[in-house]
């Protein structure tokens, strides 16, 4: 049978980079093909070529054996190719119906929108694939998982048969991801073909029929979930053996370093976003906060680091009340912060690496004398950290904006961890990083903990929480609904709690699963 989609020798060059190097790819009807590769490997470039956003320099695209040219997303949709973007292409102030029909509107009396007819069609599609979407809801009111299903409906509404999912699980809870996988399965069962782009190994093994691995713009291997395992896939992706397990020894926690008591934080609309939260972190302990993004973790961290006022409650660091302290006072007490959004909050992008490395300390000796900055010292300091933390940069004076995401994160890690600290708040420290950088950053965090530093880790990546934490705290709708040692809880149980299932039920349900195989 002719593959529904064939790419032959696709090559794309950007100034100084060979993004795609003679890539061949076949997609068969009704299959789920996983495209696995690190960030920057060229997956997204390839898909953007397929979706008409870029033109290939060489190579051709065949649909059902016939050569096609795709000059724009509109062309792609016409040839039956649809893409669920990593960052949703939805308009928050429009309804589901309006978003779905935009560009392909159902109209009556000339140019008037026929919202009813469109909504009917959306309901039909929604029922056929069990997507559970209400056409008249506004996008801004919908949780991320549902928004993603709206994106899928957008494609099906346009009769797309080849669906591209670009890192679709990045924003989902484990349960939402499982729901997505069952939707993907039902789509492929009904004859749609799917390309699934990801860098998460577990998902590839769970859902795909076939796996293609891309490294540095070229296909480096093809395999199936039966023949591969996590380690072999990681090695193919990175090009060397990767240690996926974090090496961590058991350690008795020391003295209480940091504590939060009954903290209430409100957002600017006076909504309670952190609701009566209490937690402790001891020396030599990593406490992981698990939770789907937007459940109050961001605001909790901002309150802890002095970036946001809290309404009620008390925050203590090293026996000092820091509830109303400024960020600088908190930093000077011996606290470090790796912020969630490294580009917006962690770095001054146009500044050189060297200056970014002294953002917390530039005003003190030896980096300044009086009001004059000591550039010699700052540069020496930078050279040393670049070496110690393996930051890949052309020079210490290169603007940090031109570094890759992994190296930008290393600049922050270097700045924060090179100071003498007793407490580290790391918020999504590996967001969007490749396997190699993740491995490195995890090692550094564990090393800090072994040195006796208290660590508060916030991450929506459940794997990360499970691997690093000594104790796990689950946040849901602003409340801390569970606080348990890592050893006493399974990943499935944490996942359930992240979705709002009460701890008692989650623990009971998790036990059942654990028992089942034995029966």
């Amino acid at each position: 049978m002719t593959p529904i989609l064939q790419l032959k020798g696709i090559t794309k060059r950007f100034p100084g980079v060979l993004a795609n190097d003679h890539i061949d790819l076949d997609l068969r009807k009704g299959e789920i093909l996983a495209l696995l590769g690190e960030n920057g490997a060229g997956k997204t470039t390839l898909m953007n070529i397929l979706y008409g956003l870029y033109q290939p320099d060489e190579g051709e695209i065949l649909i059902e054996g016939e050569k096609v040219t795709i000059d724009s997303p509109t062309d792609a949709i016409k040839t039956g190719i649809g893409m669920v973007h990593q960052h949703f292409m939805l308009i928050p102030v429009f309804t589901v119906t309006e978003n779905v029909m935009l560009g392909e509107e159902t109209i009556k009396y000339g140019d008037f929108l026929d919202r009813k007819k469109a909504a009917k069609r959306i309901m039909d599609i929604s029922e056929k694939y069990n997507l559970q979407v209400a056409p008249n809801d506004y996008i801004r009111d919908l949780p991320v998982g549902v928004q993603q299903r709206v994106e899928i409906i957008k494609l099906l509404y346009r009769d797309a048969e080849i669906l591209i999912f670009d890192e679709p699980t990045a924003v989902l809870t484990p349960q939402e991801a499982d729901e997505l996988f069952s939707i993907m399965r039902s789509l492929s069962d009904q004859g749609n073909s799917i390309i699934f782009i990801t860098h998460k190994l577990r998902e590839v093994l769970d859902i795909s029929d076939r796996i293609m691995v891309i490294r540095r713009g070229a296909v480096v291997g093809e395999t199936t979930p039966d023949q591969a395992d996590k380690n072999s896939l990681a090695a193919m992706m990175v090009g060397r053996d990767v240690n996926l397990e974090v090496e961590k020894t058991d350690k008795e926690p020391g003295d209480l370093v940091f504590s939060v008591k009954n903290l209430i934080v409100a957002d600017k609309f006076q909504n309670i976003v952190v609701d009566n939260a209490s937690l402790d972190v001891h020396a030599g302990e990593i406490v992981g906060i698990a939770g789907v993004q937007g459940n109050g973790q961001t605001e909790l961290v901002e309150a802890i680091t002095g970036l946001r006022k809290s309404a009620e409650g008390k925050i203590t660091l090293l026996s000092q009340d820091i509830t109303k302290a400024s960020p600088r006072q908190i930093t000077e007490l011996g606290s470090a912060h790796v912020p969630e959004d490294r580009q917006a909050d962690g770095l001054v992008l146009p500044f050189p690496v060297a200056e970014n490395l002294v953002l917390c300390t530039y005003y003190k000796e030896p980096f300044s004398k009086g009001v004059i900055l000591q550039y010699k010292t700052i540069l020496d300091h930078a050279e040393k950290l670049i070496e110690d933390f393996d930051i890949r940069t052309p020079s210490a004076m290169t603007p940090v904006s031109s570094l890759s995401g992994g190296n930008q994160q290393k600049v922050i890690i270097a700045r924060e961890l090179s100071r003498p600290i007793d407490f580290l708040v790391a918020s999504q420290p590996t967001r969007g990083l490749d396997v190699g950088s993740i491995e490195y950053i995890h090692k550094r965090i564990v090393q800090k903990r072994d040195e006796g530093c208290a660590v508060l880790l916030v991450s929506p990546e459940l794997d990360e929480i499970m691997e690093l934490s000594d104790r796990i705290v689950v946040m849901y709708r602003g409340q801390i609904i569970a606080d348990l040692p890592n050893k006493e809880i399974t990943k499935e149980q944490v996942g359930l709690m992240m979705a709002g299932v009460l701890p008692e039920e989650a623990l009971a349900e998790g036990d059942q699963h654990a028992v089942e195989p034995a029966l």
Partner: protein
Amino acid sequence: MSTSTQAIKHERIYEISPTRKLVMGIIEIIIGAFIFFVFVQTVSGAAKTTFVMTPGGIDIGKVGNWVLPTRITLILLAVLALIIGAYQLIKGFGRSTNALVGLCGLFLVFSFLTWQTADQSLNLAGMLTSAVLLAVPITLGAFSGLLSERAGVINIAIEGLMLMASMVGALIGSITQNAWIGLLGGILASVLLAGIHAVLSIKYRINQVISGTVINIFAAGMTAFLSQKFLQTNQALNSPPLFPRIPIPGLAHIPVIGPIFFNTNIFVYIMFILLIIIQVALFSTRWGLRLRSVGEHPKAADTLGIKVKPTRYMAVLLSGVVAGIGGTFFTLGSVGRFEEGISAGKGFIGLAAMIFGNWTPIGSLGAGLLFGFADAIGSKLSLLGSNIPAQFMGMTPYLITMIVLAGFIGKGHAPAADGEPYEKE
């Protein structure tokens, strides 16, 4: 898993923040106290206020005068404001807070008029008529801004467009002695300038505020030059025919409302027709959906095959058409000749009305009428021989705007991609 499909909704601590509740209550109390201590105390018990309810020069839909006992009216208004304020402080009005502050503002204005007119007579209907007329350029300016900004292009050039349109309208109207051709000429001039703004901000992605400012400065200089050189020296070039008052059969006979809304200038009718057209077109048609999508999320629109740049060009040019109509109102609908700086900042005020009206047609009209009303009070006061400078009264609507806008923080919804040039990756 049903729980994960539900929207995460946080409970609210307060419906209205306590500070706002307090501040709004205090404002209402101050209004009440002000009416009582300033107005009531300075008026004699026997004084009567006469409001004429038929505008001058109207012979259909006439009604008798409205005579009020000044002091009692003022006391009543003061007490009402104090009661509202007290209730606001003690219990609070929740969602209706803004509406009641607005009502108290209205009390203040009305009691001021009543007080000022003690033992005199004021043509209230005439004042409202002129308020509507003064609202025309402001509202059209707001509509113009609305069309452009809904598509994601900030258009602060509206002031310049209106100024240019008013001059060209006067010039062409004078030459042809036909107000309609003058109107068309004015629109054309405005569209041309809007086209420049469109090219600069869409094609060359120049900062839209700067591009708009440049056009404003150009229009001010150019019209001043042409006016001094030709229009003022040769009056034949500056005497366009005016659009006449057109009574609408039937509706014009309704008392009070008829003379104000249905026996008036064609520009007022255009304003209301545009309100309906823009409202329907933006929110009920394919055209409007696409235009708004481009202003909210151009990249999403692009991936769905909507041509972002042509859509924005069209929106900015239409914005020019509406601004052109607003501009020609000065010369062809109101004054009957061009003078330097005739638009007097109305284009900018129109943008304020658009923001105040939350980027909606109906809100823009409401804000336009409010600002027009304030202008009308200002000019009537000088006729009554008030010792309060008219300029001061002219300031009040903007003070109100600032207070209300401050109260609305977080509620205003500008289009998400407003002012952001779009470029494909």
